[in-house]
């Protein structure tokens, strides 16, 4: 769905650009290609790294890890697991639903999904390329801390305050 929209917008804008100014369009495509070539090595490395991680951290392993510890240690562990794994959002949300059905607490799920989406240990090589060391590390650290805050709030909201 969203991919179709993305492609439609790209084709439309590219066509518009081409009818307005061929030279500029060619320049834009050249820039796109150059940017792509620059980042390709990092992307390829990350793809394989994700494959390796996911082969070990499969859904069953994740739920076992998250399910084991309770309390704050469990929440921390969930956030760490979320930080080192890389699962697309459209898969992450149903996985989280599965974990909740499996009896994992809301706090842990909050920590897991938040860290999963915001913290990218695996994608750090790409991030370093664009943002530099200082900013990348600061962003990931803050995102990790924020995930714990989110877990706390979600635990309060879902954990019997309103339900």
């Amino acid at each position, binding site marked *: 769905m969203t991919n179709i929209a993305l492609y439609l917008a790209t084709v439309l804008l590219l066509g518009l650009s081409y009818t307005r100014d061929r030279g500029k369009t060619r320049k834009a495509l050249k820039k796109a290609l150059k940017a792509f070539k620059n980042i390709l090595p990092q992307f390829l490395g990350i793809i*394989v790294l994700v494959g390796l991680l996911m082969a070990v951290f499969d859904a069953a392993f994740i739920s076992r890890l998250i399910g084991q510890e309770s309390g704050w240690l469990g929440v921390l562990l969930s956030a760490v697991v979320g930080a080192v794994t890389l699962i697309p959002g459209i898969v992450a949300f149903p996985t989280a639903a599965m974990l909740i059905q499996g009896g994992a607490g809301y706090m842990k799920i909050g920590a897991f999904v938040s860290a999963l989406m915001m913290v990218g240990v695996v994608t750090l090589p790409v991030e370093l390329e664009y943002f530099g060391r200082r900013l990348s590390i600061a962003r990931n650290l803050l995102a990790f801390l924020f995930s714990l805050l989110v877990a706390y709030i979600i635990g309060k909201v879902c954990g019997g305050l309103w339900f």
Partner: protein
Amino acid sequence: MWWTMVLIKRYRFFLATATILLVISLVNQEIGSRAVGVVGYTFREMAMIIPPVFILLGLLDVWIPRETMMRFMGEGSGVKGMLIAILLGSAATGPLYAAFPVASVFMKKGVKFSNVLIFIGAWTRSKFTQYQTTPKLWINSQYLRNLQ
């Protein structure tokens, strides 16, 4: 030859991970084949998202002048700039790694630094295009099949 050295240096991270994958596959075939399955899935996902994103960025780079970007999202753009950053970040789909090239073009174009960070935050956090997940369930099942 010097260019092979350059290539090896550029791809050293990829070569290292590929070697690990090879070794693991030799030791444990089950984990190895599962890893290869996920690599295939992730590669397809990236191959779908990356070309349009980079083409759109190229177009943005060429057509939208720095001054325009600065007026809308630069220093002094205030609440308007923040709102645009939130909207752009939320409307975009795709994994975190697709946000980095966009953010770097924004920085080059004079977008205020805090707005770049707001954009990344919105990208990773609010996904209003992903709340309707039902039609995508087949992707999930496909992905889970690769994982299992």
